[in-house]
Each structure stands twice: as C-alpha cells, then as structure tokens.
C-alpha cells in the first residue's frame, strides 16, 4: 500500500507556484517524483541536478503528464551553480515560492575505517548544499507563500552503527532547518524538515540494497516501506498554502519508526 503520484498531486493545489527541486533527476527518486507531483498540482517546476540527460527526461515526463517544467544544471555543492541557477529563475519567473532541498547522499562505514574526505564529502553535499540553497533562494522569496522544504531522513534524528558521517550530516541539516525556520521570520519564509524512513529509491538501492531495506522496514510498526510518492504527498501539502502555519517542524513519514 503506497500513495500514487496522482494521489500526491491531489493533496493540495500549487497553482501558480514557482518551485525549484534539487537532485530531481533520479528515476523514482524522492526529488523527481516530488517534482512531478508538484507540477501535476499546478506548479511551474525547475527540475535541477547534475545530469542534463536525465534532467531532460524528467521534464519530458512532467510535460507528458500535462505539467510545466524546465531543467537547470545545478550541483548543490557549487556556489557558482546556485548563483547561475537563481539568476535564471529571476530572469524567467521573477521570483521563487518553493525550494525543495532534496539532493543528498549516504553511506555507512565504521568510524575507524572512514576517511576524513568522505566526512567532508557528506558535509559539503548534505549540509552545505542545503545551506547554499537557503542562502541563494531567500532573496527571490517573499511572504506570503514562501517555503523551503528540506528533505532530511530519520537518519537525522537517530544514530546507527556506521553513521558518524552520514547521520551526523543529516543531523547538521536538521539544525540548519531549525535555525532557518527562526531566521526566516523577517521575510515570512517557512522552513520544514521532512524525515522519510525506509523508502524504496535509487539511493536506497545503492546504499542498502533490497534485502537490507526489506528487513529494515519489516521492523517498523507498519511493517512496510514507503515509496517516493508517499514522500511527495507530504511535500505537496507542506509546500502548499494549506500548511501556511506549519513551520520549523520535523515531519516524519516513516511507518511509525520514530514512535519506538
């Protein structure tokens, strides 16, 4: 039992909203499915990522579903990419209503075997990538309706073996989201932190594999895993004006994992 992208798109209207999603080009990834659902809900979506070919595929998928989108090349760790992407958004749309900081990566290695370079890699991508997103998107955002959705993970709330670099980077992201929810006040910008549990995505396939994923989700209270559309349904709601008093929270979509 999982939400479909059509269900996610019907959660709330995003008609007239200008949206940018990072890391939105992986097939059945949370970023790509959220971008699709938001476009189907009426938003204009800037699909961003490092890969132009899969970016074009994502845009084509959105257009085939009747939505509007375009691709911008954006490696979230590069400040110059953010500056260029935001200049393009300013020129074409004049403003940004919704930023989804989704790009990220994960791996689990015991601390004594983990090289410092890998810790920096995850800090650059998972913390600084979102930091740059807030920093460069905010000047294009205005109250009412401005919101940043930071895609975190239950990994940002709980420790685990092998998690001193990945889980700490997601913890750092949560701290940034909370700080941003407070500092956003002067511009009326909302910031929400979304925490999926076990979700079947290309990232999960790469990091944990099907077997470890299945075992992990069996141990949650619901006993089953999420798919990207389940997360997209939450993103559509949290980004919409229906959620305009929702700010600074951790929103878990984890089958009850965080209740244990």
């Amino acid at each position, binding site marked *: 039992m999982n939400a479909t992208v059509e269900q996610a798109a019907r959660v709330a209207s995003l008609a007239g909203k200008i949206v940018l999603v990072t890391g939105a080009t992986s097939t059945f990834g949370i970023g790509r499915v959220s971008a699709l659902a938001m476009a189907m809900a009426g938003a204009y979506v800037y699909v961003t990522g490092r890969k132009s070919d899969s970016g074009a595929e994502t845009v084509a998928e959105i257009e085939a579903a009747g939505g509007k989108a375009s691709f911008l090349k954006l490696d979230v760790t590069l400040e110059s990419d953010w500056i260029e992407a935001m200049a393009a958004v300013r020129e074409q749309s004049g403003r940004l209503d919704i930023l989804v900081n989704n790009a990220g990566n994960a791996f689990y290695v015991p601390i004594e075997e983990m090289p410092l370079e890998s810790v920096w890699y995850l800090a650059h991508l998972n913390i600084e990538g979102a930091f740059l997103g807030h920093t460069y998107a905010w000047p294009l955002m205005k109250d009412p309706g401005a919101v940043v959705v930071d895609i975190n993970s239950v990994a940002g709330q709980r420790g685990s073996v092998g998690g001193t670099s990945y889980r700490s980077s997601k*913890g750092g992201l949560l701290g940034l989201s909370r700080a941003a929810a407070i500092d956003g006040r002067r511009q009326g910008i909302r910031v929400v932190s979304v925490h999926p549990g076990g979700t079947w995505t290309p990232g999960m396939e790469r990091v944990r594999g099907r077997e470890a994923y299945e075992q992990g989700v069996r141990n949650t209270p619901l006993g089953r895993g999420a798919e990207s559309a389940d997360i997209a349904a939450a993103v559509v709601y949290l980004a919409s004006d229906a959620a305009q008093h929702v700010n600074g929270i951790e929103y878990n979509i984890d089958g009850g994992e965080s209740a244990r």
Partner: protein
Amino acid sequence: MADLTGKTCLILSAETILSRSVHDNLVASGANVYMLDIPEATEPAWDSALLNSQQRPAKIDAIVNVSIPDSGGAVGDVALPEFRRVIETSYIRTWLALKYGIQTLRSSGGGSFITITSVDGATGAPAAAARCAASHGITLMTKSAALECADKKDNVRVNALLVGDIIPGEHEAYASGHVSPEDVAEAAAHLVSDAAVYITGLIMPVDNGRVGY
C-alpha cells in the same frame, strides 16, 4: 563531587574558562589530567598527536572534547567560508576527536568519551546558522559513535553535554539558559566516573532549563 582516583583524563581543547574549569574539577576529583589542543583538522595531525603519540600516557580512561561552535550569524547573512569554517573547527574537529579518541580508549581497554558542545544542538536559535548545524551534527555523531562502540563491546562510552551560555558566577534558576563553567565541569566529571558506567549515547543538556520549557 565524583571520585576519579586513579583515572587518567585527557581534555581536547585550547585553554578557555570552560576547559580550565573541567581540568580543575577532574583534578580535584582525584584524576591525573592532561590538556591537549590539536588545531589542525587533518588525520595525520590527530593520529600523531593522539592515537600514536609517544608523549601521551599509555593508559587513558577518559577524553573530554570541548567543541562549542561559533554562531556563524543568521541564515541568509552568513557566507559560505564562515559557515564552513565553523563546520570545520567544531563538527569536523569533533569527528576527528571521536575517530582517534575512541581508538585511543580502546587501546586502554575502554573508557569514557565526552563532547561538550552547544545547546543549539537540541533546538534552533536565531542568528546561529552554523552553530545549530554543527552542534546538531555533533549530537548525531555522538549517538552513532556510542552505538558503534556498544556494538563492538569495547567498553567505550560516548556521550555529549549540550551547554547553554557559559557565564562565570552564580545564576538564578531557572530557564535563563545561563550556566557557570563549574556546572558543566561537574556534569562532565560525572560522565567520566564509574557511577555513569551504564550511560552511553546520552545527549544531556546542561543549560539551566533552556530546552526544558
């Protein structure tokens, strides 16, 4: 006051009011105490100054890592180089302290690792983008390191203190968020002691009630 007779403790910190207070409390509790500052955030620096140091005592029972990040300013105002500097000098530095500190304690048959960081690791705060990110990250690093040590059954405990604004002197209770360095030192000494032998993975605010209300 904790009884730390016979224990050898290493404080990883520059000389500050807080690290001096932790030092004095541990000494008064009966421990042999060394203070070591490793400013360089590279693996060779930490390996040679800590794990494979010829100068350090052969047996170390506890390591107290003092790592309170600078605030970094408000989201939207703080530039990347300043944000990254805070991440490097607290978050990355604490990861290095954990990597080489845990192995040092393992080589001693076990022990207690304590990081003292900011209470902004538990909540958001205004104009503290980098400190919130770094200290939240440090809490999750602490939890994962504690679980890794428990998984290895290596007798190493890993905990963190989240401290409020450090202001010397007496403070009115409650919820001001102000604490004296002695308050923090006392909590650290408890986590060093054998009275805390079942405490690991704990993220403990020492904040005069700031996160409690």
